[in-house]
């Protein structure tokens, strides 16, 4: 729902990196979006395209790595992917499991065109 704000924040970061790496031509920005981040990848791509069209970032592609929710069992330490709200440990049945992945909303990398 706020994918436009997220796309804007990504491009703000790209601008900071551009200052830091003077002269580099960025061709791709890689982000990680967790299942629980409340961000829809398609809507984010759409917002990103709308913001970059006819701008200095027109040639910048967005690569999204979608990260599923992973829980870890407190009893047997098994890590497992889980459907929303089915957080019981599939190995030992314990109810107490903790979230270890799925909330990502990260900028991972920038790709630079070879000189």
């Amino acid at each position: 729902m706020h994918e436009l704000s997220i796309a804007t924040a990504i491009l703000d970061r790209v601008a900071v990196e551009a200052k830091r790496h003077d002269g580099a031509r960025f061709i791709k920005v890689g982000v990680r979006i967790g299942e629980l981040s409340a961000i829809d990848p398609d809507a984010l791509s759409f917002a990103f395209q709308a913001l970059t069209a006819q701008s200095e970032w027109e040639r910048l592609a967005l690569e999204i790595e979608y990260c599923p929710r992973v829980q870890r069992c407190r009893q047997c330490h098994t890590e497992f992917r889980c459907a929303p709200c089915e957080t019981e440990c599939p190995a030992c049945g314990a109810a107490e499991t903790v979230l270890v992945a799925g909330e990502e909303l990260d900028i991972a990398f920038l790709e630079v065109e070879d000189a």
Partner: protein
Amino acid sequence: MNRIVVEQKVLNENQRVAAELRERFRQNDVFSLNLVSSPGSGKTSLLERTLEAFSHRSRVAVLTGDIQTENDARRLARFGFPVRQITTGGTCHLDARMIEKHIAGWNLSDVDMLLIENVGNLVCPSSYDLGEDAKVVLLSVTEGDDKPLKYPSMFAKSELMVLNKMDLLPYVQFSLEQARENARRVHPGIEIIELSCTTRDGLDRWLNWLQSRRPGTPAASSGVGVNSLPRQL
């Protein structure tokens, strides 16, 4: 091909401002709450009941967020405590920068409790830290008992779920048991308080919760009348 490792949170800037706010609140001993819910669950009504119950000595301030109108600030200002409206103009959530901007000019050392009413929305506000001590999510019985499963992020990040409009329970298809179970599935440790802002049933439990989280707040004044003393910060 060259790759530059960035490894930053997308909302890094929001996190930075929120961390600054949290530190300012800590230094000034301000307890802050971020109230979140769907539109129409009763956030403003709960704040009205809360301000009405506080004694005039309470050092409470309120920020209330909406996309448009100053209606909520008007509703809340009549209790005599400092209230500021944040009109986002279209943005579906409050962010830390808006809080920073709207507390400007307030002397935080004169505030014990800052109540922040977020924009009515169960999705986006969950992504934005405002520097608060805790999030409180409201769910009203007219909305359906499966909301925690449909919007898990918000319920997972909230310390307390307030079930509002309990007076309407006999008239709607809403299972209290199911709502509690659903909330605990996405957040096993969540606290739950049931109340009605209309009949005021259960309101004492909410006021006690506030007092337990912010000792020293003179809650629940014995007089019921509206506090008429204008207060300045």
